[in-house]
């Protein structure tokens, strides 16, 4: 990235900025939850050797079958 900032501009900005606090962001945990699709891995009761991975609207521990949850 080529950025050429003149000393004049930087000094003007520095005078305006003073010792004002800078910072931006958002709650990390919530953002990670938003970006990762929620998936649910289910081992059907009728099968012991087949894993089914499906996208789930909600994660419901009370669903039948042996469930394993993953954030991936």
């Amino acid at each position, binding site marked *: *990235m*080529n*950025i050429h*900032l*003149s*000393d004049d*501009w*930087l*000094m*003007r*900005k*520095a005078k*305006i*900025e*003073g*010792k*004002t*606090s*800078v*910072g*931006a*962001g*958002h*709650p*990390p945990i*919530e*953002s*990670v939850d*938003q*970006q990762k699709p929620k998936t649910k891995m289910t081992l059907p009761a009728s099968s012991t050797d087949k894993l089914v991975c499906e996208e789930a609207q909600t994660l419901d521990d009370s669903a039948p079958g042996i469930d394993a949850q993953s954030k991936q």
Partner: protein
Amino acid sequence: MSAFTSIKLFHHDSSSLKPAELYADLSKLDVTTAELSWQPYIEKKIKSLESAGTSQDDWPEHLHWDWSQLRRDTQSKLAHQWYGIKCDGKWQGLMVLETALHRARIGADKGKHLVYINYLASAPWNLAEFVEAPVYGLIGTIFVRVAIELSFNLEFKGRIGLHALTQSEGFYRDICGMTDVGPGQEYSQSKLRYFEMTKDQAEDFVREEKQ
């Protein structure tokens, strides 16, 4: 860590500009190094807030940020770009940009892509809420300029957006000339306000460089 761009920071004590470097594509080691050097100041601040009985709701938001975790969360995502400013051999600031998920909310370009500043922080020794005499200034201004430049490069016409930390709202509104759009809706538990820079505001910000 990739090749750097030469920039300058404002040294408060001498009221002069000091040479610094802007790096892109920070490595895990870069982020961990920054975090470790910042940690003592953050821990000291947390202890002082605890002894003063300040409610955690009133603590600066960035006290809780886990930069190494953020680096892991974003390492496989092409839409995230890490930047850092180094001076005196120390990381003076970090910024994470996101270029795919967010859209403009205001102005004629509403709904179009923008560069979203996911995280931006200056080292605690540069912030008045951590130390009596902050060392360097212009970190925020230069990072905002970098975000605008990336927005131009991606043909987003300079549009950028961010959620400002409460103590930094004045910086984005009054110094950067961004629009205070209001409380961020997507982070419902947060009190952070969303700020956006339109195409025209970005052009004004850049035009000032040539005056």
